[in-house]
């Protein structure tokens, strides 16, 4: 019976600690987008991105609250939410994917990685592959990336009257600082 208990204890310890050890969370992540069109440049940023990254399982996930994008002009912000992103119907954009890198992401250092996964914006899910960097520090992990998103891919409709104001493709920048999950 002693052996059973010891066995159980080892199993319990093993199964609970191994998985959470390399899990990091970001609560105030940053994401911005920039649209450059003949008539107008549009920029907005969001500082409430939440994300989890597991450096052992090499998984990463994001949740972006659409209504938290801040624009310079309040009219743009209103149109962004109501006309284009329909944030009342699709309040969040999400991403879930896996990280591939030739290196083990254990030692402190900066790694160039490729992240592949499912990006959901405006209720439409697409498989995307983006390049990024992961900086593993003493206690925190910083992830950043830049990529392009084509509005048409996510069924974000731009009326013909404003095609010269809104770019077909927007430049997205992501930067997140993660801390270990307790």
């Amino acid at each position: 019976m002693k052996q059973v208990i010891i066995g159980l204890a080892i199993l319990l310890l093993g199964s609970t600690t191994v998985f959470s050890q390399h899990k990091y969370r970001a609560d105030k992540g940053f994401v911005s987008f920039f649209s450059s069109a003949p008539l107008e440049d549009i920029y907005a940023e969001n500082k409430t991105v939440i994300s989890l990254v597991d450096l052992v399982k090499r998984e990463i996930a994001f949740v972006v609250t659409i209504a938290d994008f801040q624009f310079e002009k309040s009219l743009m912000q209103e149109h962004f939410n109501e006309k284009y992103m329909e944030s009342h119907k699709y309040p969040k954009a999400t991403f879930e994917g896996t990280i591939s890198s030739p290196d083990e992401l254990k030692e402190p250092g900066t790694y160039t990685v490729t992240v592949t996964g499912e990006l959901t914006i405006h209720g439409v899910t697409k498989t995307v592959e983006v390049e990024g960097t992961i900086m593993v520090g003493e206690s925190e992990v910083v992830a950043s990336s830049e990529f392009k998103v084509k509005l048409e891919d996510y069924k974000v409709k731009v009326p013909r009257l404003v095609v010269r104001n809104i770019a077909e493709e927007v430049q997205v920048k992501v930067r997140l600082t993660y801390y270990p999950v307790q």
Partner: protein
Amino acid sequence: MKYRLLLIGMFSIVLTVASNAQEKNLLDELSTHAKASSEQYVSAFKSTRLVLGPTTVQLSAKELQFRVSHLFGLMSDGIQELFGLDQIYNVDIALDYGLTNWLSAGIARSSDYDKTLQTGVQLAILKQTTSAQWFSLSYAGGVNIRTRKYEIERPFIERLEYEHLVLLSRKFNHQFSAQVTPGWVNLNRVPTTAHPHSLWYTALGVSYALTPSTTLNGEYTYVWPTFNDGLYDGGKNGLSVGVDIETGGHVFQLFVTNATRLQPSGFAAQWNNNVFFDGDIHFGFSIMRSFSL
């Protein structure tokens, strides 16, 4: 001994399965942390004007809005006058500026008979939000000055008109909004002694989104019959139907109305209006452009 090993084996399988089940994928785990969507201000209408009357839409701080409204002649004049398009009845040019997100001030000038120069402020008292606040409440008020030449010299005070409006709106869903506007207008000079100086009215406005960029709007201004029956004509209460087309920073409004004046002090004074259902209506349009300074 064999029995014990078997037991350990079984336990380990059970435990691994259990711990795997607990180990949800990252996105599900995040979703449990995700807060509800943050509060946003909801604007009930496309622009600061429903058709002729003001809406609860508030200019943001440092936003400058330029508006020009045109009103053409009577549509009942027929094809000879191209349904009124041959004449320009009234042109109203306005500039409004958001001093803060809650207060804007504006100036406008109408080419009507009195050459009315309008000054006004709009104060947002409550703003509807996505969940916490279910309606918007604003105050709009102003002093208008009739700048036309009088045949005989009149004291300046007689040129003034005052407007006080309370705007109460609600966006019911993503297509339908409505507004109730109780208003009081005081005209220091009226055509005859039978005409009232003080006019009370309640305007009802509705807006229905046909597409994300276009809305169909209607506005009815009920003037309370507080004055002489012979003078009061219910058919002359302002009735306007319009379409808003929003293209980013611009809003284009096309409308028909039985009013001949474009400011509340003008269209609340019933004697300026025609009878809508006699077909004596005017086609008009407004163009609004916002600049962020």
